[in-house]
C-alpha cells in the first residue's frame, strides 16, 4: 500500500478543485483512504492522516471518525504525534461525549512528563477544553505545577487553574496556598497569568477578595515599576512596557478597590500617575487609559480623580480613531447616572456623535443623549434628537421615538410644545412608533384639556396629508371621534382655526375605512370615531348609513362593531348620548396604559362599548373619581363593565322577571334598599357551571306618584371579588309600582368571602336630581358560601 499523501500535497490538490462538487469528490476519496488506513492501525502515518482530517474538518466536512485516532496519537511517545493528537482533540472532541474522558489518563501522564513541551501540551489542552470531570481528576497535578520554579510551566498552570476553577468552583480553595508568592515572580508571563488567576478567584468569592486585598501595595509597586522603568525591549509595545500586564493589574485593582476605602486610597496615586503620563498617540496607550478610567469610576476615588477620568473620556470623544470614540461613549453611558454633571459638560460632543457614520457609535450616542436630557436642555436636545429621528436608519426609529416620548413626558416645558413634539414624531416616524405608544398618547392628549382643539386640528391636517402611518392615523381618528365638535366649530386658540365641515370630516374617516393602507385595527378606530360623532355632529343620518353598511363587512371585528352600533341606533337610542359622551380624564399610571384605563371607566381601544352612566349634573372629568369616592376606602374596587347585548332577549333579566320573586336556587331574595319610595330587591341564582359566580338580579320599583327617570344603578365590591353589571331593562322606574327595572349583576367570589356591596343610585324625580349611596350587608349566606 503506497504511503498516504502528505498534508501539503492534499491541501494543494484540494485547492485546485474548481467546483464544490469536485472538492467534495476529492475529499470523499481521501476520507475513504484515511478510513482504511485507520482500520489497519497504521502507526507510522496516523499523524499525517489525522492532520489531513483536521484540514478537511476546517473546510466543513465531518471528521468524527478521527476522534479515537486523536487519542491514540496522544498516547504515542512521539512528540509530533502528541502535538497533532492534542490539536485534534481540541478541534474534534467536545466534553459532551464520553470519549473525551479517555484522554484523562494520558493527560495525567503527560503532565508529569520529562519534557516541558509535552507538559505544556497537556496543560494547554486541559486549560482549553477540560470538562468538569477531567478537571476534578487532574486538579491536583495542576496545583503541583503551579508551585514549580519552571516559569514556562508555571504560567501555563496558572491559566489552567483558572479554567479548572471556572468548571469546578468548589476546587478554588485548593489553589490558595500556591498563590502565596506568585506576585514575587520576575517573569512577566507568570505575573500576567497570576494576575488573571487572582482576578478569577476574587470575582468568584468575597472571602478570597478580602484575603487578597493585602496584595494591593504589591500590585501598585509592580505597576509603578512598569511605568517608571526604562525601555525594555522584550516587553515594549510602542514605547509602553508590557501593556497587557498593566491592563490586567488595573483590572484587578478595580475589583480589590471597589467598595473599600483603604484599598482605594492606596491606589489613588498610581491611578493618577497612569492617567496623566500614558502616551495617547497609539491604541495601546489608550487601551491602558481606558482600563484606568474604568477602575477610577468603580472604586471609591476622590472627586478630583473622577473628574480627571471623565475628562479623559471627553478627550476620547474627540479622537479621530473611531474605536476610541466608541469605548468613550460606552464608558460614559455607564457613568452618566453617577456623575451626571461631569458628563453633561461633554453633551455637545456627544450630540455630534449622532451624526457619525458608524452604527454602533450612533446607537450609543443616542442612548447617552437621552440619558442627558433634563429640564434645562430639553428644547435644544429635542431639536437634535428629532433631527436624528428624521435621518436615522429604520433600526433606530422605534427606540428613538419611544425615547422622545419619554423625555417629552418628563420635561415638556409646555403642553403646546409637548403636543407639537408628539405630532412631529408621529408624522416623521409614524410607522415605527411602538404599538403601546398609541394608548399612551391618547391618554396624554385627553389629559391636556385646554389643548384638545389644537390637537385635533393638527391631527386632522396631518391626516389630510398622509394616511399611511398607522399609529398616527389611529391617534388622529380617536381624537376626531372625541373632539370632532371642536374641530368643526373652529375653536382653536393656539393657531389659526381651520374651516372644516362635518361632511369633510366624515369623508376623511370614511376614507380611512376603505383605504388599502389601513390595518384592521385602524379601521376599528375609524368606525368607532364615526359612531361617536353621531352625538357631536348633526348629520346623524349619514353616520347611520355608514354604520349599517359595515354591518355586513367581512372583517369580523368591524362587523361586530357595526352591528352593535346599529343596535344602539335602533333599540337603545336613549342610551346613545350617555354611551358616547366625552371621555373623562384617565388615571395616570406609570406603566401600561390600557389595563389601568379599563378600571377607570374609559378605554382607549373601543372594542367593548362601555355603558357609561350619565354623571350627576357635574362635568365628566370627575366620573372616575366619583366612583372611587363611592367606595371611600382603598379596599373596594369599582368594576363598571357592561356589554351591550346584541340579542333582544337578555336572557338573565327577563327570565327572572317572568318568574317574579321565585327564588330559583333556594337562596331567598332580599331587599337591598328601600328609601324615599324606591325599593330595590335582589334575587339570586347560581351560575352554572361555575359555582363561584353568583347571579343577582335587582328589581327596582317606585311607589311614589311620579316616575323616576334617568335611573342609574351602580355597584362596587371589595377587591377580592369581581363584578359584572349587565345592562338594565330600562332607565325609567314607573310610578306607583306599575313596573320594575331589572338589571343583572354577576359576582365572582373565588375566595368565598362574605359578600358586601356598595350601591349608588341616581335618578330624576319630579324635576330634581336625586342621588344616594348605600351599603348592602344583609346578603344571605347561601349567596356567597
Amino acid at each position, binding site marked *: 500500500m503506497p504511503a498516504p499523501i502528505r498534508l501539503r500535497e492534499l491541501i494543494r490538490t484540494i485547492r485546485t478543485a474548481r467546483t464544490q462538487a469536485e472538492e467534495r469528490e476529492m475529499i470523499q476519496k481521501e476520507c475513504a483512504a484515511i478510513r482504511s488506513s485507520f482500520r489497519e492501525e497504521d502507526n507510522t502515518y496516523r499523524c499525517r492522516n489525522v492532520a489531513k482530517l483536521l484540514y478537511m474538518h476546517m473546510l466543513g466536512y465531518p471528521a468524527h471518525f478521527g476522534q479515537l485516532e486523536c487519542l491514540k496519537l496522544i498516547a504515542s511517545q512521539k512528540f509530533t504525534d502528541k502535538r497533532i493528537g492534542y490539536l485534534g482533540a481540541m478541534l474534534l472532541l467536545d466534553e459532551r461525549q464520553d470519549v473525551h474522558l479517555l484522554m484523562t489518563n494520558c493527560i495525567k501522564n503527560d503532565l508529569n512528563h520529562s519534557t516541558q513541551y509535552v507538559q505544556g501540551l497537556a496543560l494547554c489542552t486541559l486549560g482549553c477544553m477540560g470538562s468538569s470531570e477531567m478537571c476534578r481528576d487532574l486538579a491536583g497535578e495542576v496545583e503541583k505545577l503551579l508551585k514549580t520554579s519552571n516559569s514556562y510551566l508555571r504560567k501555563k498552570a496558572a491559566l489552567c487553574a483558572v479554567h479548572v476553577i471556572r468548571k469546578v468552583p468548589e476546587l478554588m480553595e485548593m489553589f490558595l496556598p500556591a498563590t502565596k508568592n506568585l506576585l514575587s515572580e520576575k517573569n512577566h*508571563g507568570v505575573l500576567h497569568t497570576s494576575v488573571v488567576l487572582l482576578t478569577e478567584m476574587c470575582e468568584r468569592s468575597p472571602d478570597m477578595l478580602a484575603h487578597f486585598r493585602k496584595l494591593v501595595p504589591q500590585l501598585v509597586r509592580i505597576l509603578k515599576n512598569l511605568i517608571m522603568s526604562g525601555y525594555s525591549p522584550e516587553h515594549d509595545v510602542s514605547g509602553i512596557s508590557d501593556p497587557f500586564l498593566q491592563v490586567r493589574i488595573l483590572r484587578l485593582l478595580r475589583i480589590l478597590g471597589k467598595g473599600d476605602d483603604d484599598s482605594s486610597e492606596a491606589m489613588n496615586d498610581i491611578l493618577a500617575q497612569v492617567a496623566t503620563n500614558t502616551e495617547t498617540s497609539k491604541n495601546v496607550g489608550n487601551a491602558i487609559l481606558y482600563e484606568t478610567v474604568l477602575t477610577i469610576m468603580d472604586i471609591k476615588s476622590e472627586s478630583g480623580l473622577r473628574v480627571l477620568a471623565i475628562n479623559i473620556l471627553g478627550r476620547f470623544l474627540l479622537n479621530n480613531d473611531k474605536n476610541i470614540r466608541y469605548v468613550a461613549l460606552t464608558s460614559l453611558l455607564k457613568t452618566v447616572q453617577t456623575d451626571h454633571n461631569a458628563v453633561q459638560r461633554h453633551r455637545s460632543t456627544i450630540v455630534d456623535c449622532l451624526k457619525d457614520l458608524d452604527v454602533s457609535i450612533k446607537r450609543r450616542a443616542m442612548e447617552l443623549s437621552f440619558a442627558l436630557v433634563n429640564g434645562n436642555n430639553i428644547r435644544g436636545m429635542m431639536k437634535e434628537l428629532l433631527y436624528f429621528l428624521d435621518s436615522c436608519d429604520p433600526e433606530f426609529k422605534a427606540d428613538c421615538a419611544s425615547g422622545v416620548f419619554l423625555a417629552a413626558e418628563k420635561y415638556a416645558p409646555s403642553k403646546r410644545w409637548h403636543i407639537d413634539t408628539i405630532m412631529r414624531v408621529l408624522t416623521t416616524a409614524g410607522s415605527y412608533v411602538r404599538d403601546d405608544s398609541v394608548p399612551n398618547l391618547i391618554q396624554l392628549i385627553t389629559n391636556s384639556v385646554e389643548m384638545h382643539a389644537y390637537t385635533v386640528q393638527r391631527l386632522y391636517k396631518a391626516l389630510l396629508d398622509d394616511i399611511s402611518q398607522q399609529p398616527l392615523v389611529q391617534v388622529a381618528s380617536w381624537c376626531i371621534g372625541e373632539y370632532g365638535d371642536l374641530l368643526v366649530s373652529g375653536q382653536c386658540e393656539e393657531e389659526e382655526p381651520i374651516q372644516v365641515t362635518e361632511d369633510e370630516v366624515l369623508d376623511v374617516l370614511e376614507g380611512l375605512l376603505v383605504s388599502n393602507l389601513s390595518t384592521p385595527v385602524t379601521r376599528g378606530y375609524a368606525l368607532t370615531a364615526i359612531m361617536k360623532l353621531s352625538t357631536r355632529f348633526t348629520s346623524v343620518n349619514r353616520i347611520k348609513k355608514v354604520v349599517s353598511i359595515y354591518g355586513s363587512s367581512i372583517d369580523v371585528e368591524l362587523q361586530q362593531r357595526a352591528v352593535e352600533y346599529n343596535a344602539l341606533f335602533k333599540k337603545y337610542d336613549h342610551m346613545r348620548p350617555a354611551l358616547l359622551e366625552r371621555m373623562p380624564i384617565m388615571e395616570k399610571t406609570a406603566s401600561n396604559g390600557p389595563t389601568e384605563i379599563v378600571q377607570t371607566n374609559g378605554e382607549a381601544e373601543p372594542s367593548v362599548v362601555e355603558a357609561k352612566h350619565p354623571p350627576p349634573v357635574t362635568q365628566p372629568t370627575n366620573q372616575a373619581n366619583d366612583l372611587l369616592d363611592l367606595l371611600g376606602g382603598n379596599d373596594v374596587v369599582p368594576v363598571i363593565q357592561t356589554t351591550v347585548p346584541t340579542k333582544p332577549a337578555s336572557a338573565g333579566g327577563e327570565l327572572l322577571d317572568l318568574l317574579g320573586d321565585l327564588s330559583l336556587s333556594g337562596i331567598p331574595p332580599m331587599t337591598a334598599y328601600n328609601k324615599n319610595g324606591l325599593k330595590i330587591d335582589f334575587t339570586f341564582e347560581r351560575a352554572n357551571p361555575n359555582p363561584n359566580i353568583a347571579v343577582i338580579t335587582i328589581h327596582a320599583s317606585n311607589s311614589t306618584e311620579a316616575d323616576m327617570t334617568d335611573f342609574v344603578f351602580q355597584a362596587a365590591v371589595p377587591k377580592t371579588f369581581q363584578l359584572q353589571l349587565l345592562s338594565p331593562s330600562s332607565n325609567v322606574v314607573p310610578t306607583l309600582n306599575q313596573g320594575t327595572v331589572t338589571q343583572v349583576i354577576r359576582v365572582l367570589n373565588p375566595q368565598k368571602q362574605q359578600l358586601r356591596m356598595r350601591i349608588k343610585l341616581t335618578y330624576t324625580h319630579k324635576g330634581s336630581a336625586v342621588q344616594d349611596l348605600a351599603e348592602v350587608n344583609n346578603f344571605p349566606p347561601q349567596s356567597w358560601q
Partner: protein
Amino acid sequence: MQFMLLFSRQGKLRLQKWYVPLSDKEKKKITRELVQTVLARKPKMCSFLEWRDLKIVYKRYASLYFCCAIEDQDNELITLEIIHRYVELLDKYFGSVCELDIIFNFEKAYFILDEFLLGGEAQETSKKNVLKAIEQADLSYFSFSRGWI
C-alpha cells in the same frame, strides 16, 4: 476570550479556536452568522460590534479577518493589541506572513496561538519568549523521532 476566528474575504475559514464548549452544529452556525455580519461591515466602521450577548472585536490584515469574541468585562482596545501581537508572531515565524502560509501550515498557526494564549487569556507577553518556545518545540521533535507530516 470565548473564541477566535480567522477567515478570508470570501468567508472561508482559516482557523477556529474555541474556548467555550459548544457542539459542532452550534459552532458552524455561529461561524456562518458572524462571518456574514463582519463581512457586511463597511471599511470605515469601528472594530467593535455587539452580536448576541457578546462583544466582537475584529481587524482585517490584508486578505484575512481576525475576529475575537470577548466578554463584557474584557477591554476591547487591548484585545486589538492581542490580535496585533498574534499577527506579529505569525509574521516573525513565517517571515512576512501571508494567507497562503496560514492555509498550508494551519497546524503551525495553531501551535503558535497555543503558545501565546491559553484558555482565552495571554500566557506570555514577551514576543521573544513565545517564538523561542515554538522554536524549541519544533526542534524537540527531532530528538524524539523523525517524521514528517
